[in-house]
């Protein structure tokens, strides 16, 4: 397979042409578009948003099985789509793997770096004490910076 990434504009043009002739492809592209914009989207809202883009009836006579098939096809294509039942974030969403590599890298790095056990201890402190710690850190950083400057001047 040729490396299409060298000319994505032409490939997108071809994809657009194919999508106009292929309702399933068009629907699946719309699903990805909605999820990328909306994050967590309930099943009914997802169907509604896709219909708003492409027209009512785009999922046929049985919208739910059709959506289920679309989701399976997208997952088969390697697109990481999750489903959340957690309160406040119910519905389908694009998992971390679906974000750009740059964004994924930042998020993964942050999750690796945070010491959640330590954070549990920090959480025991009052919010007021946590803000006080901010100003202590700033004072400490200033003292270190000042000491370094004095050392450099002494050694000159």
């Amino acid at each position, binding site marked *: 397979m040729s490396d299409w990434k060298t000319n994505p504009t032409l490939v997108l043009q071809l994809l657009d042409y194919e999508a106009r002739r292929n309702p399933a492809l068009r629907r699946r592209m719309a699903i990805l578009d909605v*999820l*990328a*914009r*909306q*994050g*967590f989207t309930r099943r009914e809202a997802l169907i509604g948003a896709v219909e708003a883009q492409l027209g009512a009836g785009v999922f046929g006579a049985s919208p739910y099985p059709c959506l289920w098939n679309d989701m399976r096809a997208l997952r088969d294509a390697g697109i990481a789509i*999750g489903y959340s039942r*957690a*309160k*406040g*974030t119910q519905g389908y*969403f*694009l*998992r*971390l793997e*679906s*974000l750009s590599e*740059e*964004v*994924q890298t*930042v*998020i*993964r*790095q*942050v*999750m690796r*770096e*945070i010491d*959640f056990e330590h*954070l*549990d201890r*920090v*959480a025991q402190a009052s*919010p*007021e*004490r*946590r*803000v*006080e*710690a*901010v*100003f202590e*850190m*700033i*004072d400490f*950083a200033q003292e270190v910076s000042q000491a370094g400057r004095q050392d450099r001047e002494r050694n000159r």
Partner: protein
Amino acid sequence: MKEFVSRLLRLFHTHNLSYAIGGSVASSHYGEPRTTQDIDLSIVLDETAAPPFVLACEQLEWYISPQETMRAVQDGGTFSVNDGFWKADIFVIAGDAFGIESFKRRRQEKLFLTGEIAWFLSPEDTIIHKLRWCGGKPLDKHMRDIAAILHVQNDRLDLDYITRWAVTFRAGDLWAGLLDAYRRRQD
């Protein structure tokens, strides 16, 4: 920094300006403390109140641009105040739907600086501000602040509310991805 913030809050009080602390000071309040070189605040400031506020800053020998301040007052947006070292980035909420809603949800919390009660953005609005200004390219410090608020505030957060605004600011996928990564890390 401590003195600068304390004087700035006193100035808001003297000029009867409504404000809310956001940014890293708010995220430290609700999550993990971290050092910073500036303080982010939201305020309500109109064309009548702006000139005396600018004058008061100038009398303290702080740097403030009257033009930048008036632009922020008229069009919404930010201006900055600094005392030559420490800086405050001040977001004027004029006409900004999220700014207005976040102001209605602000909270009074005890601030150790003065022992007084100060206004803070809610933890949800602190998160949304950070998602909003990412512009699709998140900085690790903001992502870390958000993850820490998620962890410390836990199930007290109104996730529906955050999701709604994240979508408005085209950060719905970033928010979902971050939450996904956090939940997987906790499993």
